[in-house]
């Protein structure tokens, strides 16, 4: 079937199988490999993208069901000149990543959180990231990065 949607501000249309998952559509059909597949079972959150402004696990949505939607992936976060988004810059500054595999999903979830709650406290950040698994950092620096990206001081206790 033919589907069309807007991905990172660009109109795209492709012929896909009805069973095509959104994540495979992004990665394999559009070449946007920044969105990762960690588990393929909705557990890990590495594939989180925004669909019409809301965080969605792209491995648990059909591409066909995103017909007409506005989709934003990690590739759509930095400015056109390559300037990192504030959350990306904060992850770099605060070492919010080690291997980086979970990072695209973390950044997209963090962006969704800050849209809904611009000044979250540490507990709210940790609770919101419930569906994003990181096996390197122990989450500590991720939480620090999101605190910093929200313009709040990073607590000494978290140093």
């Amino acid at each position, binding site marked *: 079937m033919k589907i069309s949607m807007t991905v990172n501000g660009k109109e795209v249309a492709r012929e896909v199988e009805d069973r095509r998952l959104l994540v495979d559509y992004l990665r394999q059909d559009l070449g946007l490999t920044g969105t990762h597949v960690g588990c393929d079972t909705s557990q890990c959150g590495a594939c989180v993208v925004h669909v019409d402004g809301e965080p969605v*696990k792209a491995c648990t949505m059909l591409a066909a*069901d995103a017909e007409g939607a506005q989709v934003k992936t990690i590739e759509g976060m930095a400015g056109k000149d390559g300037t990192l988004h504030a959350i990306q810059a904060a992850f770099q500054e605060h070492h919010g990543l080690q291997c980086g595999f979970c990072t695209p999903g973390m950044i997209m979830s963090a962006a969704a959180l800050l849209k809904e709650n611009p000044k979250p406290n540490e507990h709210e950040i940790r609770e919101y990231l419930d*569906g994003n698994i990181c096996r390197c950092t122990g989450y500590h620096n991720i939480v620090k990065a999101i605190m910093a990206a929200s313009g709040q001081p990073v607590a000494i206790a978290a140093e």
Partner: protein
Amino acid sequence: MYNFEFQKPGSIEDAVAALRHEDAMPLGGGQTLLPTMKARLASPTRLVSLGGIPGMKGVSSSGDTLIVKGGTTHAIVAREAGGVFPGLAQLASHIGDAAVRSRGTIGGSLANNDPAACYPAAALGTGATIKTDRREIAADEFFQGMFSTALDEGEIITEVRFPIPQAANYQKFLQPASRFAMVGVFVARFADGVRVAVTGAGNDGVFRWSEAESALSSNFSADALAGLSVSADDMIADIHGSGAYRAHLVKELTGRAVLAAS
């Protein structure tokens, strides 16, 4: 997952017609059905997405009733139900995780009737009415055991009508891997009595704890539960917890819900 034919009708009538096809299944947010299909535990030949039907999303209230349209996501209920029914918004805001709440729908959750899902406890715990494309079903008649409901094949939940309680609270003891309830208890206090519904624990799925309802209706305090217990024999026992463990949690969480709603 095996391939299938995808359809996204623009009206309830067209969806009902599309679902008359053999082995067709309705698709709400897909947060349960798609993982099930990937595991090849379900293999519909046709998926009928309900996401393209106007008027299937939204929260409104009318007098003492909160109306949630069948395709409303957990995220929307969490954001919009709090003004008149904070207990329901609180429940919705802790289903799965944020990304799951963006997609999962109330109709999908009730129709699936997972024995550990949260929404069945709210529907049964308030005596909600489930409205479908063809009739209205009382919550007390709707839930018929694990993954089993009064819905016919191809019947679509169009809205859920919750009587708004004077006070309500949902306590969920999280199964941390699945984020479903190990045990969840919904307590709702109405002018004419108290209802208590338990999810995650019963062998036959969500159930009302009628002894606690009677005790709490005459004395709405955790102390009223002191002499009561539920039978471990009727509880789910699995690698995550024994029947006795779940029976204990039912009482403990009921007490916490009463305290939080007091």
